């Protein structure tokens, strides 16, 4: 019985466990992560254990922007067009060819004829039409939203079994790229009849696509099992690997705690993990594991200055904030080399990027001078004031973005040196959702958006899209800067890539000249995998692709 436990042993156990806990901090976690032996031909078979940070919420494709959703969608659904993640070129996939009219209001796609969904129904023109009728128009009765990537969609027309036409009310030059994104994953006609509830977590096995994997098992909130489709034979023609996926299956396990995800990988309990925090990268690399940091190829991780707010309506204040933030120090302190310093609103790898680094110079003397000129004078506690008002600004903590709070804390310290009081809004979801739509409560909005198309800049700043600058005041729908609106509309109405790139350049020039945006860094998604994991790839906004993955062990 418990009463008879000899005490010395008890004390010994206590002492041992204390010692073990202390050792845990300093023990060497190096394990056989990588095998430097030559990589042979791909081996078919095996199940990969992939650790996710969060549980997926919903598999309605337009909701696939949320990383866990997109990570699943990319395995189970094919798209009309394939976007090469390196070159960002658009290449055939389910569609063998496509053409558009001169005004970009009509598109015709020709489809492969050998593709089936995993429930056996053919992926034909009627099925494709039904997909885009839903994604392009949404269905408010079923709470299914319009895809952010598809603009001005009107209707579809099935010409014959392998030809489908789409019509738009206004030019929609980004449409071909939109058909390549995970938010346009093709699902079987029956799946498209589901309501938002039917697409929700717990119903994974009902979501039928034509992709290389199908969902075969689910434990709500913790685990999803995917199995390879034996008869898959329609990978993008430009990809070397054809036929079925190498893996037999993928086990996606939700492991929210960062240290547990990293520890599981290092101790050999998992094969791949998503979301390696910047501070953990060194540890993972030191143990000989591969770190992958694919770029999101869109609008950079930035601070958006809401210029309609009283304080920020003065361009000198905006320029002073830009000059007062040492972006390089933020990256060196909080992030790693996988987070390149931003040189424009758009990422260097985004379509339409132009270098604006000449406008992004750290210069505290200039910042101080600009604030002096703008009438903000230093007071006793070092924070500047003007007509009794303190120079206090609020920025939101962008919880989905890596180490947002740490970065903002450092920036707040930097700005304090030039007499600006930057406060960070950290709040419950409801308060947060209301506050970020109100320039009186959040004057600086921290966010990014990834999409490898010229349209991405419009998504971020246009009045009826993300509207992050609050150029449209949500209270009265008035527009503060009509010129910005016009420039953004041009991005979505020009037809040729050259014209669209020129329109993107004008927007970037304007944002830089007005100092509306302080771009911080080009945001990657950071993954890690054991050395024996081969062929791990990513689509154009850094969602994982398991089609080519094989286990060299």
């Amino acid at each position, binding site marked *: 019985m*418990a*009463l008879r436990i000899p*005490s010395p042993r008890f*004390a010994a156990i206590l002492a041992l466990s204390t010692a*073990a*806990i202390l*050792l845990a901090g300093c023990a060497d*976690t190096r394990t056989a992560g990588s095998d430097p032996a030559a990589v042979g031909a791909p081996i078919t078979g095996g199940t990969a*254990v992939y650790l996710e940070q969060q*549980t997926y*919420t*919903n598999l309605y494709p337009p*909701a696939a*922007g949320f990383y866990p959703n997109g990570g699943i969608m990319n395995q189970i659904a094919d798209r009309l067009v394939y976007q090469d993640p390196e070159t960002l070129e658009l290449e055939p996939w389910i569609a063998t060819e496509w053409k558009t009219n001169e005004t970009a209001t009509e598109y015709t796609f020709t489809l492969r004829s050998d593709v089936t969904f995993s429930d056996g129904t053919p992926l034909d023109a009627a099925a494709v039409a039904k997909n885009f009728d839903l994604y392009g128009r*949404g269905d*408010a009765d*079923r*709470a299914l*939203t*319009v895809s*952010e990537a598809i603009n001005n969609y009107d209707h579809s027309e099935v010409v014959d079994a392998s030809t489908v036409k789409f019509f738009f009310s206004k030019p929609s030059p980004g449409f071909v790229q939109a058909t390549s994104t995970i938010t346009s994953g093709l699902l079987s006609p029956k799946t498209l009849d589901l309501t938002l*509830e039917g*697409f*929700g*977590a*717990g*119903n994974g096995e009902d979501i039928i696509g034509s992709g290389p994997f199908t969902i075969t098992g689910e*434990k*709500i*909130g*913790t685990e999803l099992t995917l199995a390879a489709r034996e008869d898959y034979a329609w990978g993008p023609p430009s990809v070397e690997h054809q036929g079925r996926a190498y893996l037999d299956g993928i*086990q996606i*396990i*939700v*492991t*929210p*705690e960062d*240290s*547990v995800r990293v*520890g*599981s990988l*290092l*101790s050999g*309990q998992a094969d791949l993990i998503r979301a390696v925090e910047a501070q953990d990268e060194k540890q993972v690399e030191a143990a000989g594991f591969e770190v992958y940091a694919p770029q999101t190829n869109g609008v950079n991780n930035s601070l958006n200055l809401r210029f309609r707010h009283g304080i920020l309506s003065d361009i000198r204040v905006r320029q002073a904030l830009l000059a007062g933030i040492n972006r390089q120090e933020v990256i060196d302190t909080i992030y790693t080399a996988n987070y390149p310093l931003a040189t424009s609103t758009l990422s260097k790898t985004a379509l339409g990027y132009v270098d604006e680094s000449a406008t992004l110079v750290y210069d505290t003397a200039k910042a101080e001078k600009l604030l002096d000129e703008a009438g903000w004078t230093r007071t006793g506690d070092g924070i500047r004031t003007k007509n009794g008002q303190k120079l206090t600004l609020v920025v939101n903590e962008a919880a*989905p973005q890596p180490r947002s709070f740490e970065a903002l804390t450092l920036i707040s310290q930097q700005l304090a040196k030039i007499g600006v009081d930057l406060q960070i809004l950290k709040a*419950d*979801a*409801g308060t*947060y*959702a*209301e506050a970020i739509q109100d320039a009186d409560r959040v004057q600086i909005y921290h*966010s990014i*958006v990834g999409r490898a198309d010229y349209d991405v800049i419009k998504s971020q700043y246009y009045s*009826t*899209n*993300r*509207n*992050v600058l609050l150029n449209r005041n*949500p209270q009265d*729908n008035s527009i503060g800067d009509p010129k910005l609106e016009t420039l953004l509309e041009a991005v979505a109405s020009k037809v040729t890539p050259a014209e669209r790139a020129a329109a993107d350049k004008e927007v970037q020039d304007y944002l830089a000249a007005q100092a509306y945006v302080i771009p911080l860094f080009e945001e990657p998604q950071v993954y890690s995998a054991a050395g024996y994991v081969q062929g791990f790839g990513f689509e154009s906004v850094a969602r994982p692709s398991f089609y080519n993955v094989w286990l060299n062990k």
Partner: protein
Amino acid sequence: MSYILRRLGQAVIVLLAAFTGSFLLLQALPGDALLIKFENPELGLSPDQIAAIRESYGADIPLPVQFWHALTGFLSGDFGYSVQSGTAVRDLVAEVLPDTLRLAAFGFLAAVFLAVSIAFLSTFPRLAWVRGVLRSLPSLFVSVPVFWLGIVLIQVFSFQLGLIPVINPSPAQELILPVLTLAIPISAPLAQILTRSVDDTLLQPFVAVVRAKGASRTWVLTRNVATNALLPTLTIAGILCGELIAGAVVTETVFGRAGLGRLTEQAVAHQDTPVLQTVVLVSAVVFVVVNLVVDLLYPVLDPRLTRKAGAPA
């Protein structure tokens, strides 16, 4: 019998109050789940599209009508749908409830075992030299953050020693570390109360009498002192079931386990009212049932309470 009926009646009132209270509080919070989900700039929806969705969800229906819908829904077993994922709340809860109940039950048993061990060991004369250490254990346990404890246990037993995997553990393995994580902080107040009661009881005159009659110390402890010391401990145990639910939130997140705690954490993060309402109600039911059982156990453990408790009000 009438006592039990009266207690059941009270339980129903408590549940109704919990339901109404949580409904009102969730409505009073700034924002709502629809705002959080659909007006999130990340979705890039236009104001018209958002308005259409709000209408389809019936967000503009007056509050009393919404309350009535929710209440009648709950009574008929329809808990609605999670706004965040769209999944039926019934499915969400049914899937995770057994896991959490198992974790909580084993966690509680382990906590009792720990508490009893500490309390009785620390009264043994032969262990006098470690009494100080044993008696300070509860203070240590209660101040250990669950979050930290879970991570340390995983680091040591899973990652360093490789004894228990956290990824794909066997059914037996998967409970060991989470149960330990949950049990240690819960055992602290139990051990404190138990130690105190044992000390108090040992000072009672009847103990001296029993000892004088030749009973061994173990006999006195197990037969006489334990039963007397159990009562206050039982009261605390009833209250601690709330701690179990709170502890499960952290434990399940650290260990990546499915469970009510994890569900709660996600629902709170997205202000997912239907899920939160159900969680509150399920927790209230568990709380009410456990405390009812505890109250009914009093007379069984201590015959002195039978008449008092059994008397009509």
